């Protein structure tokens, strides 16, 4: 199976991120959508009145609540320094596409379909319970059960780490780092560093 040059992948990912922002006015975060779906299944639809407030209504209600919580003088504070260009609340209301379980499912389903299409076009479509690589084969020792346990364990660890860090590789590694968010820089250093270290360590030990 042949691969495109690495930089094509980079440009493609950047294009997807920009298209996501332009179409939905939201940063792309895969685990956030997954979490929203799981929470919907666990806790059911939102019950609180006011969940359907538009951005403009929400900000209006927030201004009232701000005065109630901090006093009228709080409203006289100067505008915060921000690197973001000023955005009108109305434009957010108009442009911000509501996110529902349907849109989350559509996005996550498109990930699967996209991967499937990519495999079909690349000629590498096939069902497997394994990962390529000598190290994986050595650790699993050829046992199908061992391979399944490794994949399951890896998935659980990735999921737990994602929840602990408040985001996944796309959220922190792509969106957060590009916005110079300190937490995302640290998270990305953490998961890339740990991945490299674990890989080197296992390669030496096994």
């Amino acid at each position, binding site marked *: 199976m042949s691969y495109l040059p690495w930089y094509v992948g980079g440009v493609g990912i950047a294009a997807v991120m920009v298209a996501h922002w332009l179409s939905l006015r939201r*940063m792309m*975060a895969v685990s*956030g959508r997954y979490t*929203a779906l799981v*929470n*919907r299944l666990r*806790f059911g639809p*939102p019950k*609180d*009145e*006011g*969940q359907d*407030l538009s*951005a403009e*209504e*929400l*900000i*209006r*209600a*927030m*201004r*009232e*609540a*701000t005065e109630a*919580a*901090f006093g009228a003088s*709080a*409203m006289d*504070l*100067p*505008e*915060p320094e*921000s690197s*973001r260009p000023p*955005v009108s*609340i109305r434009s*957010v209301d108009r442009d911000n596409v509501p996110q529902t379980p349907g849109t989350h499912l559509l996005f996550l389903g498109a990930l699967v379909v996209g991967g499937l299409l990519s495999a079909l076009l690349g000629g590498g479509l096939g069902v497997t319970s394994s990962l390529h690589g000598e190290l994986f084969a050595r650790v699993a020792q050829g046992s199908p059960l061992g391979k399944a346990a490794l994949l399951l364990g890896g998935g659980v660890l990735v999921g737990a780490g994602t*929840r602990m*860090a*408040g*985001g996944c590789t796309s*959220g*922190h590694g792509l*969106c*957060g780092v590009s916005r110079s*968010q*300190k*937490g*995302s820089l640290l998270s990305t250093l953490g998961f890339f560093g740990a991945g490299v270290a674990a890989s080197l360590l296992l390669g030496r030990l096994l």
Partner: protein
Amino acid sequence: MPRRPECPNTLSCEMYDLLKLAGTLAIWKTNYCTSDFERCERHKLSSSGRPVPRNLLPNGVLLRHLSKGERT
């Protein structure tokens, strides 16, 4: 002067984006998001794995529709 710690959920917090849009709401950021975010009710819910209502303020107040008379 060292910068104060920022809430790790700023990337995913729906309200944080709104706070950035309206300068008059900056006091929430300075009191919660960029300082004592551990006491933020949104942060607490998110950390416990529960869904965070989009109308929940950091101090635990749930925003509701304003009545017609209250609308400006």
